[in-house]
């Protein structure tokens, strides 16, 4: 599968990147070279192999339980028990590039 200029433009769009013409040319070259290397994964037969998304399933999952209870380890205690407090308003906007002190300000969203 060869990556084309069109693909680069499409993916840049999805990723919210603009990229200069020069960067696009680099991306085309680099993505093709990396994906060619990655292509060797297709040599492996994996039809009956379960995908592995994360390591924590190995130590966290309680196999004696059913349904979502099996994954009780992943319950967000920080959220459930209210450990993760909201930031005070002034702290939350302190790093904002543009704020009126109450809201984050951004350029106009809807053109009329």
């Amino acid at each position, binding site marked *: 599968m060869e990556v084309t200029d069109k693909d680069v433009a499409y993916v840049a769009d999805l990723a919210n990147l603009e990229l200069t013409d020069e960067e696009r040319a680099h991306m085309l070259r680099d993505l093709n070279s990396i994906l060619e290397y990655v292509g060797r994964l*297709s040599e492996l037969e994996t039809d009956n192999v379960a995908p592995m998304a994360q390591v924590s399933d190995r130590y966290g999952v309680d196999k004696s339980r059913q349904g979502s209870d099996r994954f009780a380890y992943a319950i967000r205690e920080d959220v459930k028990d209210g450990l993760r407090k909201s930031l005070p308003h002034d702290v939350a906007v302190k790093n904002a590039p543009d704020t009126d002190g109450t809201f984050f300000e951004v*350029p106009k969203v809807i053109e009329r």
Partner: protein
Amino acid sequence: MPASTIDGIRSAIAERQTTATALAHDFYTRIRQEDPEIGAFLTLCEERALAQAARIDALAAAGKALPSLAGVPVAIKDVMVTSGVRTTAGSKILDNFIPPYDCTAVARLEAAGAVILGKLNCDEFAMGSSTENSAYYPVHNPRDKSRVPGGSSGGSAAAVAAEMAVATLGSDTGGSIRQPASFCGVVGLKPTYGRVSRYGLIAFASSLDHIGPFAKTVKEVALVLRTIAGRDPMDSTSAEVPVPDYVAELEKPIKNLKVGVAKEYFGAGLDLEVRTAVETAIQKLAELGCEVVPVSLPHTEFAIPTYYIVATAEASANLARYDGVRYGFRAKANNLSEMYRLTRDGGFGMEVKRRIMLGTYALSAGYYDAYYLKAQKVRTLLTRDFDEAFKKVDVIAAPTCPTPAFRLGEKVNDPLAMYLADIYTVTANLAGIPGISVPCGENHEKLPIGLQLFARHFDEVTLLRVAHAYEQAIKCA
């Protein structure tokens, strides 16, 4: 240098031979002398350090018991957030970011009495193997300043090697602790996934990211791990697994432990001097009473392609948050969509953009099954390789890197060549097993070589024990 070990510093302060404040000043003096030619630090936080040192000195003056890391000068890779102290992740997009909270690992170090001197240079968002992707300046290897310190935690390794900190924290997503430890001739540990909380670690690839320590010796690394390890309710992937006393276990004999050696880690591309040094180290483990057992990790050659799909896919999602709205750099623009694009274009460096592009491509409609799902399945196969091997052996020994430190500029224009520097380290991230790099000699140019050891999930005890026994044995030789 004054006392250079954690225990030495703590007792020197307790016995009033020195103070934490004097020690902090000594280290800042050294940083000001050495760092202009190395570039390990991005930010110094003297006010915070001296306030902490004063607390320790007050405890000592009152004759109170000192915590385990009392007065120990440490530094933190700039991908861990520090309350009130600028945190950049090596990126211009976070150039002016002052976090409102502390990373758990940092908070635990400070609670144990450590004095945080500053924040350490790294590849942007920890993406790189040479620290040349820092948006600020590259780090020079203290052992040979024309060479890279490795990456992405190059500042963390270099600061320890140049004795600008007694211990440092780094992060390891594909080798970013072990590879620079090897290049700079220090000890670096990537713990088991879930062993150390990732709360406050700026996310690169969440299923592969780990925090771990650097120091001159295995014992210092064990002391730091004991401090930062353990369940943290703020990170639901941190494991509810008890934390053993790694230090107390260090001296236990290693006789009769089985050390696996996999031929897949000694194939084409391995530098001859590195091979010889690692084989000699394995021979030393045999002399210490370990049984050397051949094992097979047959999917190793697929680790780099698997890693670069999984890591970039996760990165493309994690880095979507940098949009110029709530924090960080914002480009001037006429509308919101343009603002996002110009902010990300101007804020991210080329390697970060490249990985976002690759990850977005791998997750996009039509390619998801061929790339991302495929890579997740191969990740299962790679993990099974280790499961099988660890039925037969207690640790696996391998080179940390195929070569010693390369020259600055040597690989910057060839992303694939740079990725291959991680060929022996990414497997432990994919499987989540712990790995350590310990110095095992030098090549003819006096460049350090690293021995890498792997162990079973949550068996840092055995990993550290073997590493410590090896380190002691070559020290006496």
